[in-house]
């Protein structure tokens, strides 16, 4: 049975009328045309589809739409503002922390969630927090460096409030 679900997507109020049992990933990609969030494995193993729900990293392929009612969802499209990259995005670009770029949105959002709760993580803490995000191209070393660099240049606070 279809239902209207209302939530905030990257700071904007949205409502979707569809089956609330559908997974957030497909609603984002299909109904809301936010294709930055990617399908990776469909079973929550790879982290590719990671988005933030009320600041927590979630696997959108395993997250029923019903559960975002009244909440704030942040996808990769919501991280940069006015054409200006978030420091984390900038660090990924500057340090070449990506190759094919397919896992990158989920990777950046998982890292973003880490920096929200731990603004200055060690390399080990970064690796630990991102353990569930797979990068088949093998850019892990540069991803760790990028997250470190972004945490050093942390200018996130303003953006955070806007996004969440």
């Amino acid at each position, binding site marked *: 049975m279809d239902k209207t679900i209302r939530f905030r997507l990257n700071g904007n109020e949205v409502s979707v009328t569809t089956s609330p049992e559908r997974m957030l990933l497909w609603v984002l*990609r299909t109904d809301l045309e936010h*294709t*930055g969030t*990617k399908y990776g494995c469909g*079973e929550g193993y790879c982290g590719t589809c990671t988005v933030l729900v009320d600041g927590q990293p979630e696997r959108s392929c395993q997250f029923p739409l019903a559960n975002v009612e009244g909440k704030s969802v942040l996808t990769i499209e919501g991280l940069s503002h006015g054409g200006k990259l978030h420091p984390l995005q900038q660090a990924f670009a500057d340090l070449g922390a990506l190759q094919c770029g*397919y896992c990158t949105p989920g990777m950046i959002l998982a890292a973003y969630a880490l920096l929200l709760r731990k603004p200055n993580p060690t390399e080990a803490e970064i690796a630990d927090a991102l353990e569930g995000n797979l990068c*088949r191209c*093998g850019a892990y070393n*540069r991803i760790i460096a990028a997250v470190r660099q972004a945490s050093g240049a942390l200018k996130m606070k303003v953006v955070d409030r806007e996004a969440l």
Partner: protein
Amino acid sequence: MKPSKIDKPAPKLKLKLKAQPRIKDDEYTMYGPDDPSGRTTLERRDFLKLAGGGLVVFFTAGDVLDAQIGGARGPDGGYPDDPNAYLKVGADGRVTCFTGKIEMGQGIITSLAMMLAEELDVPLASVDMVMGDTALCPYDAGTFGSRTTKYFGPPMRQAAAEARGLLIRLAAAKLGSPEDALETKDGAVFAAKTPSKKIPYADLVGGKRIEVRLEKKPPIKAIAKHSVSGRPTPRTDARAKVTGEAKFAGDIRYPGMLYAAILRPPAHGASFKSAETSAAEKVAGVKIVRDGDLVAVLHEKPDVAAAALTLVKPEFEPSPSKLDNGNIFAHLKEVSADSDVVVESGNLEEGAKLAAKTIERSYFAHYVAHAPSEPHTAVVRVEGDKAEVWASTQSPFRAQQAVAQALGLPQENVRVRTPFVGCGFGGKNQGGQIVEAARLAKLSGKPVQVAWTRTEEFFNDSFRPAATYDIRAGLDAANKIVLWDYKNYHAGSRSSQPVYDIPHKRVLAFGGGFAGGGGVRVHPFATGAWRGPGSNTNIFATECHIDIMAQEAGLDPLAFRLANLADARMKKVVQAAADKFGRTFAKAPSTRGYGVAITDYLNSYVAAMAEVEVDKAKGTVRVLRVVCAQDMGECINPDGARMQIEGCITMGLGYCLAEEIRFKDGRVLTENYDSYDVPRFSWLPKIETVIVDNPDLAPQGCGEPAVTVMGALVANAIHDAIGVRLFTLPMTPARIKEALANK
């Protein structure tokens, strides 16, 4: 660079600048060209801004087609020699590079643009890349084998050099200066003695084809004069990829497009009998399409299509396959009647007589999946006698042919476009999903997207083949290798020629290569190229065997290798790695866990050294550090090259330690990342790369070479650590514990 002396100034030369329909340089669309909402049609500048102002894969629409003849081939069927096939200078001065190659993470979107910018003397930021579009780009067999820089680079450079020479000629006529008094810089031709006397390229051609040819091809620029090429340069697609703007095939939308969920057999070889679809048909909006054994559920939401597919009740015949991980190697030997001689020199009997010690071993490697980040995806729209295809593919022209064949259309009526591709590693040479989408689009009359699920990806993949090896090698009294008798079954022959100086050797390759074939049903499922195809496992077997011989010789593995190498270039690369590694090797097992492995991968030379730690109780291996030196000739983008080497090392850990397709009776038991373990952050060693400078050698490949040494590198380091040798890839905890128990 001075223009060729033959190209005399010709003030009265009639320049045939053929009139062309207006080219809509200012409009690009990121989705389907006919999206009625117009919401995704961006002004070019906005799009470039979004995508970082640098290079982007952009999708041209409309009559730009008339200006470019896609699929052009040279007289020998290879790359064409008309510069117009490779590049166009737009009315706005931006330069567009056309290449049938595709970007899947390997970074050629940056390095090809660097090569073009260098040769044409334009800023890198003014180069746009059109990649893998069969309507716009010159024909290309596909993006694989680390061949882009090596084989597409030279003709593109030559085209750019010629275009530059032509622009000088055009400028000479306009400026009234002799050609040899003109120079180029920043996208303009200027008089060397009066630089204010200049004319931008855009004013010379303004988006039109240059319909004039030079009598003689100008030489390409000397490396000493390079200012773009050879400098570490950040990826030009990074901005698009960190913002989520980068489009992959699954992000392409057509109005009215339906998503397909396709019925798969439970096992390879299980033929289709029937499917009861009435329950699925009751789902609102579902459309069932059947064509022989192709049964698909279509819906405007992909997840609804997938859910409805679970309601389909199919019947399949059981698979006749009786193969599994336990009996596969015996089977591979059994179906290996014919062999090719890869190399034969000297005389094996003579070698055996010279040998003071002979060492015989067998090696084994299991099937491995590509597991690309982005599963195989395609979108196809068929209208009348034309088909538009957007595909996650390494071979757009092969896809064009396959779609034309499947739909009964002339090839030129099929246009394949390739957006960003999320990994390939050889797996996307095969485009089963493209033909599926084409058939379903035709049958349904709607644009259709097929995006394999991860489980379909594991089922339909063309795996790296399981392979086995028998090696017999001999050492003389002076510890020189005098005999090398090498038999490889089904791996493919690449990198199976030893790099060592061996007087009596023979290398045989049994079976039809990594893609199977050879007239017998070798594998229970498809196999194919997997990053460094053939080489991964050939080098595993070869370099493990060399290590065993070093041990037999009583020498450390580095000294033994150097003593048996004659190739000075390889010795230099090995030394470069050793210098960076900075540790002294000792006769193995030293308990320190050091390993070494080297290769010549299609003339890119690699030497790697590693340090590992083994938990004997658990059988787990931790690779602590990998040093990798590589000589790939002239290096276009050193930062891009390092990224590829680092990626090779990280990805390579997977097939070393964990990746193995489990299968039984045609079924693929590893269906997702819970049962197929790929490298994660916690596996990451410290990686140090050394690019061995060799500008005198033309650029070689870089996407694959380093991945091929990983199996032997880690196996040798494990042996050095714990004194047991693993003969089977992957070296799982269970196999390590078993080897320890049998010690």
